[in-house]
């Protein structure tokens, strides 16, 4: 039926960009897709996983027609309704996230191309041939050089422009289309992240094709404050790697302590295992207020926007190293180094210095000069008690705390010298400092908290970048058959209910032989709890992408390696071509790869786009309770929804009645509930009976552990035949199923959405 059409000029141009003539795989249906190209896939996803909106605000105030009241079915002056307004805000959030990473990628590429030239070859080591699964799948280009990455990031920039355009007054009017656009933006986010991390690995020689990366010291006590301390905050390693080079070349590395907060810390320790990780984002303000850092170098993303003000309070000096964040500081990039150092030392000034080499030299010189004169002491017990004693229990701090923490009681305890309960509370503090500014007694609460802050240090494994092709070959079969019960990706920021939650979850699932991968702040906090023999999860479990392994993949941009691993399973293990073949990859992942993301402390817009990008690829994501404030989830209703899929082997549509996966963007209220939902979200229709019984075993046992016994209410939906029932629960489950009139059903040989909705992808494309 398909008549062969001549290529349009635009198509020809795309084929040129992606070097279509190089025949590493046939070019699939969607090279460098634009907004409409994957829309039908999105609509299929959104049919089962409908958007759930929790508006923060009754109004829209985005143009001067407003404010418009959007309650009770009202539309704004432009015609927009409340659902569409939510979807527009979500698209904006995903675009902010996507552009933060794309901007990061662009900056780092510029820096590295300057350093190595555009022809610098991409080599990810012996065990990684499929170097760029996201880029290859989305664009159809197999990037061979840094210059090729530039082509990719320019495509992302272009799409961002069109997507942002659609949020303007009087454009898109359908919430579903806004969601499709948000999914598009977020898929592109994974492309941008992949560009950034491949460039970093290649350009800075970060570890690759290795699992056993060095162990790193973490925690503020790991920082030797008797030395000059340079603190790096943010995400961009151009600053930190250049600093380390400078220190090495000038024999200063023994004399200066380099520490990092947030993803820059992870990046820096991929470059030098001597650098220290202070901790996640939630420890930023706390650490800065300790005054331990002599010089603070900021780059981009997730840094305090009041850094110079905070630094002034403890007379640290700030260097803003990237144009994304200049704090209104004087741009000293072209100044004489000596003059900058002089003004920073003598006049306590901060500067923007956008040349990493100059910034490095200045930071080192200033730190060496000012460190001996600065005080870097934690608060004394006496002082803390005295300050806490001023508390009148007015509750103002609790009222403004984003984690709803009541500090009055903690202040009382501290004033009486009881530190145990306040210490638990401090573990829940996300370090925003809002309590401090609200306290009518002017108690410096974060400073007082220094007295209960853990002085422990922990060991975390340095980030290792992409999962190796060889590892994928080993786990492909057990994963898709279900005998490895799932791959869990703990990602995202540090806005969690409790700092221990992530470590507890990682421990529970690694013990149960799930494959656990981690990035960003989640990777850090997972290492901030000690289990048996005082060991962290990184010391207790092997670093392999295999059953029971705990793998620190790296920083936020390394999230692309997680979606990349899912694509690799489809491509390397199932041998489905990936080139410009996004729909087939996503359909495979959704229906056949038991993977689940957990963004327990998701807070930023980047986390919104990372998660939404996982969703488009078919990876469900469990979010922590704060994430209801993103205001959109993708939920199904298991009893009512349509769970039909195509059985590609039989070429017929089958009504499975099985909600697997049940949701793709879901908020769990508590860690306990998340522990029950996670194993369920790893169930897939193609599980073998053995695989399914293993998965159900975990589901039931975690349900019993956290829900007070009994069997899950929806268990019957996931039992296809008697062989699916785990041996240990056989008797009880059989009785239960009989009671409710359960009927066995045929498992589906090769489940797919292809064939259940209008798409250009033929059914043959998913058969391997």
């Amino acid at each position, binding site marked *: 039926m398909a008549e062969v059409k001549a290529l349009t000029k635009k198509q020809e141009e795309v084929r040129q960009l992606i070097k279509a003539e190089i025949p590493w795989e046939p070019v699939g249906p969607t090279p460098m897709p634009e907004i409409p190209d994957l829309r039908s896939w999105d609509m299929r996803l959104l049919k089962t996983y409908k958007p759930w909106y929790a508006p*923060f605000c009754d109004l829209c105030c985005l143009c001067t027609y407003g404010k418009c009241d959007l309650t009770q079915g009202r539309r704004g002056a432009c015609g927009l309704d409340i659902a569409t307004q939510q979807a527009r805000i979500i698209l904006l959030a995903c675009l902010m996230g996507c552009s933060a990473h794309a901007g990061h990628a662009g900056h780092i590429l510029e820096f590295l191309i300057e350093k190595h030239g555009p022809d610098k070859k991409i080599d990810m080591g012996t065990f990684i041939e499929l170097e760029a699964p996201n880029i290859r799948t989305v664009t159809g280009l197999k990037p061979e050089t840094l210059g090729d990455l530039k082509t990719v990031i320019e495509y992302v920039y272009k799409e961002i422009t069109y997507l942002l355009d659609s949020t303007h007054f009087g454009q898109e009017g359908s919430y579903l289309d806004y969601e499709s656009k948000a999914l598009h933006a977020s898929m592109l986010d994974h492309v941008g992240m992949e560009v950034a991390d491949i460039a970093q690995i290649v350009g800075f020689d970060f570890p690759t094709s290795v699992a056993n990366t060095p162990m790193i010291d973490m925690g503020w006590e790991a920082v030797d404050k008797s030395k000059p301390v340079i603190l790096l905050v943010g995400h961009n390693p151009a600053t930190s790697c250049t600093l380390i080079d400078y220190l090495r070349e000038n024999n200063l590395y023994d004399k200066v302590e380099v520490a990092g907060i947030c993803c820059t810390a992870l990046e820096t320790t991929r470059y030098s295992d001597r650098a220290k990780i202070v901790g996640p984002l939630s420890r930023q303000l706390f650490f800065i207020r300790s005054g331990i850092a002599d010089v603070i170098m900021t780059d981009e993303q997730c840094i305090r926007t009041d850094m110079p003000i905070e630094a002034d309070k403890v007379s640290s000096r700030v260097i803003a190293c990237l144009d994304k964040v200049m704090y209104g500081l004087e741009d000293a990039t072209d100044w004489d180094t000596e003059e900058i150092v002089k003004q920073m030392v003598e006049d306590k000034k901060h500067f923007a210095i956008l040349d990493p080499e100059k910034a490095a030299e200045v930071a080192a010189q200033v730190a060496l000069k000012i460190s001996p004169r600065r005080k870097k002491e934690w608060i004394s017990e006496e002082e803390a008690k005295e300050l806490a004693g001023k508390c009148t229990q007015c509750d103002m701090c609790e009222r403004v705390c*984003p984690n709803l923490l009541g500090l009055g009681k903690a202040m009382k305890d501290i004033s009486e010298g009881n530190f145990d309960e306040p210490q638990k509370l401090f573990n829940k503090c996300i370090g925003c400092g809002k309590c401090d500014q609200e306290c009518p007694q002017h108690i410096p609460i974060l400073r007082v908290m220094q007295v209960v802050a853990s002085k422990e240090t922990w060991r975390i494994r340095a980030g290792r970048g992409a999962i190796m092709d060889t590892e994928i070959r080993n786990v492909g079969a057990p994963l898709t058959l279900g005998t490895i019960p799932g791959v869990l990706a703990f990602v995202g920021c540090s806005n969690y209910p409790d700092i221990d939650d992530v470590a507890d979850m990682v421990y529970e699932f690694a013990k149960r032989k799930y494959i656990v991968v981690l990035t960003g702040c989640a990777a850090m906090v997972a290492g901030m709890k000690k289990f048996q023999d005082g060991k962290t999860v990184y010391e207790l479990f092997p670093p392999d992408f295999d059953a029971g392994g705990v793998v620190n993949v790296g920083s936020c941009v390394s999230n692309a390696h997680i979606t990349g691993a899912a694509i690799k399973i489809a491509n390397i293990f199932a041998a489905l071509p990936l080139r410009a073949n996004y729909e087939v990859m996503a359909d495979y992942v959704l229906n056949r790869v038991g993977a689940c993301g957990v963004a327990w402390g998701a807070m930023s817009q980047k986390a919104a786009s990372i998660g939404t990008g996982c969703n488009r690829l078919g990876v469900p994501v469990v979010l922590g309770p704060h994430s209801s404030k993103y205001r959109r989830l993708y939920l199904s*209703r298991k009893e009512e929804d349509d769970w039909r899929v195509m059985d590609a082997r039989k070429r017929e549509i089958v009504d499975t009645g099985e909600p697997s996966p049940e949701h793709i963007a879901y908020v769990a209220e*508590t860690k306990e509930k998340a522990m029950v939902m996670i194993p369920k979200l790893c169930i897939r229709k193609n599980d073998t009976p053995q695989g399914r019984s293993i998965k159900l075993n975990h589901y039931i046992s975690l349900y019993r552990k956290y829900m007070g016994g009994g069997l899950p209410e929806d268990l019957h939906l996931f039992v296809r035949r008697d062989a699916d029932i785990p041996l240990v629960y056989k008797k009880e489950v059989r009785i239960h199923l009989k009671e409710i009139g359960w009927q066995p059903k045929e498992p589906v040989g090769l489940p797919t959405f292809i064939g259940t909705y209008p798409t250009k992808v033929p059914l043959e494309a998913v058969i391997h």
Partner: protein
Amino acid sequence: MSAMIPFHRVNVLTGIKSARLIEDAAEYANLIQKAKRPLWVLGPLLSEWALDGKLLIEYALEIAKAANIPICATAHVKGKMVELGVKPDSVYDAVEIVNALKDPDWRGVKKEGNHDLVIFFGIRSDLEEQCLSVLKHFAFNHLKTMTLDKYYFPHANYSLPNFRKDEQWKAFLEDLISELKKGG
């Protein structure tokens, strides 16, 4: 309408439709009794919060019994309920139950039709407020919402004020139980 600021500022209303503040237990009891198919959404904090040593979940179960209201247990609160000898009528997470409730054609936890009054109790306040927002915006035609937590929730239809003291809250809950018993 004069603005009542919720206790937790993350829940400040940015909009125009905020909950009616009710301090009189008899009025609450009346609203509950007038409802044809009320639903109790009980959250995990009920097994942590206590008033004078009595867990809030015990108050919640007494109210459910007095007014014969079916229960939806969210998160992991089911465990505590079972310990106290009560099996919830349904188990959903907070976001899931509101997802079902916003559909007017949903058959409800008893399969007798969707609920017309949903009472929230014991979910962390930021999440509870978001769940209330879902219903305020997408279920306003077919149901009303109510909260029994200690603080004011603007996205509900009916809410308690910010009680300064636990005793006030306790007194309210006790009055509510006796009002419901009277009415029942």
